[in-house]
């Protein structure tokens, strides 16, 4: 059996990182020590601002925090729209953000948890070093989680028919608004899901 061609599996990003590190290595034996940078990097990760919005959301769900999170997700979505994998992760974050912003304390507890795991996946893909198949697996499992949550939310809302004793207390207006709420949620999640499904379809399409 021939040896595995690891180069073929590695992504352009990881190859690029390795090449840049090897050409522009500053601490090599040929370097003049006096010109080498000596202090710490103080580097800021490009996803830092989104990370801080994710952490804030985990701590507090307010208009300000959810608004900031949606804004950040939208900004990043615009910036990385050319990268199909990153943009699917960001679309999920954007969709979850919009949902949490709308329903706040009433949003499903799984939604904030999914924000954190989706963000972790986004960072892994962003930093490179994953093979194409690893990226795809990560993306697919995140999309699956998102679909599962969507289904759970819709199912739970459907089950909501209130106990009979309380039913008499609910006015026609309240019933209508609950129904309206359910319909809106369904439409919102369906639209976001359709967008993500299109992206996945495009990604799975064999390259010509």
């Amino acid at each position: 059996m021939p040896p595995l061609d690891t180069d073929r599996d590695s992504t352009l990003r990881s190859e690029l990182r390795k090449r840049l590190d090897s050409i522009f290595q500053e601490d090599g034996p040929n370097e003049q020590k006096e010109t080498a940078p000596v202090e710490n990097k103080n580097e800021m990760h490009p996803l830092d601002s989104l990370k801080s919005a994710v952490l804030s959301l985990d701590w507090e769900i307010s208009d300000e925090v959810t608004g900031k999170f949606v804004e950040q997700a939208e900004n990043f979505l615009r910036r990385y729209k050319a990268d199909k994998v990153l943009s699917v992760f960001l679309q999920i974050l954007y969709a979850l953000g919009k949902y949490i912003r709308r329903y706040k304390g009433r949003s499903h507890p799984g939604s904030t948890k999914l924000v954190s795991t989706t963000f972790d996946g986004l960072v892994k893909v962003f930093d490179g070093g994953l093979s194409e198949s690893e990226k795809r697996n990560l993306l697919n499992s995140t999309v699956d989680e998102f679909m599962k949550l969507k289904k759970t939310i819709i199912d739970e809302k459907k089950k909501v028919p209130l106990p009979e004793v309380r039913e008499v207390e609910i006015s026609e207006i309240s019933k209508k608004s609950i129904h309206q709420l359910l319909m809106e949620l369904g439409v919102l999640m369906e639209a976001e899901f359709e967008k993500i499904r299109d992206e996945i379809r495009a990604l799975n399409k064999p390259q010509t």
Partner: protein
Amino acid sequence: MAFINLKKKEVQVKIVYYGPGRGGKTTNLEYIFKKFQDRIKTDMVTIKTQGDRTLFFDFLPLGLGQIKGYNIKIQLYTVPGQVKYNATRKLVLMGVDGLVFVADSLVERKQQNIESLSNLRENLASYKKDISEIPLVLQYNKRDLAKNDIPLLPVSVLQEDLNSKLNAQAFEASAVEGKNVTETMKQIIFLTVASLERELK
């Protein structure tokens, strides 16, 4: 737009260092050239005025060799920072693939940084390009001057002034000392070439 020659399997990427005058754009390129001269084996082209200011642009070509079967060539440019040379800046920006905005950390340069970034947006807009859609790295230069008790803008202020909407990666740097000059360059090359990933498959 990057020049991709599918027949010759060659990719040419243009990266421009932008920012206010005397901010350290040329010093960035000079550092890279001096530091890696032996490895990159190219010449740096620079056109200066008598006062040692960049008149037209600095140009430093780099070769990364073959990656995924493509020969990757990088062209680093600077623009003249002085306000009066906007026509030149606009010209150098033509076909840009990635940007480094070199901000000056001196307190008195706060306004010039903001104006230069705004000028960059305008010049890109004239090519129907949106700054938020181009690979971008910010560099907060001259951080070494803090050692000499020269008042510098805190990084949080620079972030607020320049990066609150852009969310670009930012480095604190000292071009004269070489601190984070290479990191800035590596990151912008990485982001720019990675943005072409789809075209290179």
